[in-house]
């Protein structure tokens, strides 16, 4: 005879078993008289609990509500400062979202203007648009200013920087912006999680 399933009978009676466990209990009950008797006992107990102590007639709902209304204390006014803080608090994610949209639009427009300028679509109005990579030139100027002689390796690094700028700048700048905004948002989420009340703030006594 397989092991009895008495410990699962309560859950079985309550309809809380599923899957393999449910099947296991059902199969076992088919030919185990001990567990069948145990289950009948539990059913009988449940019937007894309901039948022996019926629910009384409580006072009518309207009367109870009226009595309660007289006892309900006045809720303290929320201070103006707290209200302002609450509004400000929820403005943070909205601000992050607005900043993200703004940066995306700005970068898109900047890219379009740059492409149009390099394609000669803007004519002589495009003179202010940088003609090519700038990082290498800046670094070379800085090295000259500091009277540092760049050797072959240094020049190679500057060239590499120019290449990165040429192909990667359109990715790098948005990435940095998005990472910064994401960092602010995650920080806000963490703070929000920390200041959220746990389990609706009602502790249970004497459990």
């Amino acid at each position, binding site marked *: 005879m397989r092991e009895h399933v008495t410990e699962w009978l309560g859950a079985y009676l309550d309809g809380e078993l599923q899957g393999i466990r449910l099947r296991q209990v059902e199969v076992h009950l088919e030919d185990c008289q001990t567990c069948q008797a145990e289950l009948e006992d539990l059913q009988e107990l449940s019937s007894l609990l309901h039948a022996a102590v019926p629910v009384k007639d409580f006072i009518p709902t309207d009367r109870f509500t009226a009595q309660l209304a007289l006892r309900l204390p006045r809720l303290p006014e929320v201070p103006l400062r707290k209200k302002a803080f609450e509004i400000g608090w929820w403005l943070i994610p909205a601000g992050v979202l607005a900043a993200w949209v703004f940066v995306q639009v700005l970068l898109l427009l900047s890219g379009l203007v740059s492409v149009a300028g390099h394609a000669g679509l803007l004519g002589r109005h495009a003179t202010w648009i940088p003609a090519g990579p700038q990082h290498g030139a800046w670094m070379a100027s800085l090295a000259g200013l500091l009277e540092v002689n760049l050797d072959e390796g240094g020049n190679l690094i500057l060239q590499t920087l120019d290449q990165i700028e040429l192909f990667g700048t359109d990715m790098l700048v948005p990435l940095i912006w998005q990472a910064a905004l994401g960092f602010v948002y995650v920080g806000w989420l963490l703070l929000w999680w920390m200041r959220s009340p746990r389990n609706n703030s009602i502790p*249970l006594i004497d459990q």
Partner: protein
Amino acid sequence: MTFPAETEAGLVKKAQEGDRSAYGELVRRHYQGVMTVVYRLCGDVQLAEDAAQDAFIQAWQHLSSFQPASSLRNWLYRIAVNAALDVLRRKSEMTLEDVQVLMLPDAGPGPEGLLLQQERAALVQQAIMSLAPASRTVLVLREYEGLSYQEIAVTLDIPLGTVMSRLNYVRNRLRELLEPVMMSTEVEYA
């Protein structure tokens, strides 16, 4: 003011803003459930009314901390359980025999049947009241309120396994305590 079509979420929002009428409607909707829970825990109508009043007042005072995404009913039950246990503690001088007397049903089928029913009800109630509050609470929420194990776990903030083990313990204990009653019932129906 009445709110027949107002959703519970809408009422909660209004009540959280201090609308007493909206809160009154929420009380009306959950009165029966809360009363049943506290009555089963206290074993007396008067104590249950006190506990229910305390529970709804506490809920009103803490409503701002209620998370609308969770179940209001379960939140109220949690407060109601607290209130009922608190009322019982305040009335700790009341003995189980007092509870037994208070629990006698008002009417029954004939004098002999009534006597038998009274005796049985008293024994059952005495057995329930002899359980530890934690065990009694789980029993009431499952057996009388029909909450699922998951709902009980959330309401009482205890693991699911604990709900099951407490129920197993409570049922076995009640079977021991009520064995004479159950046997007499069997004879009666035989």
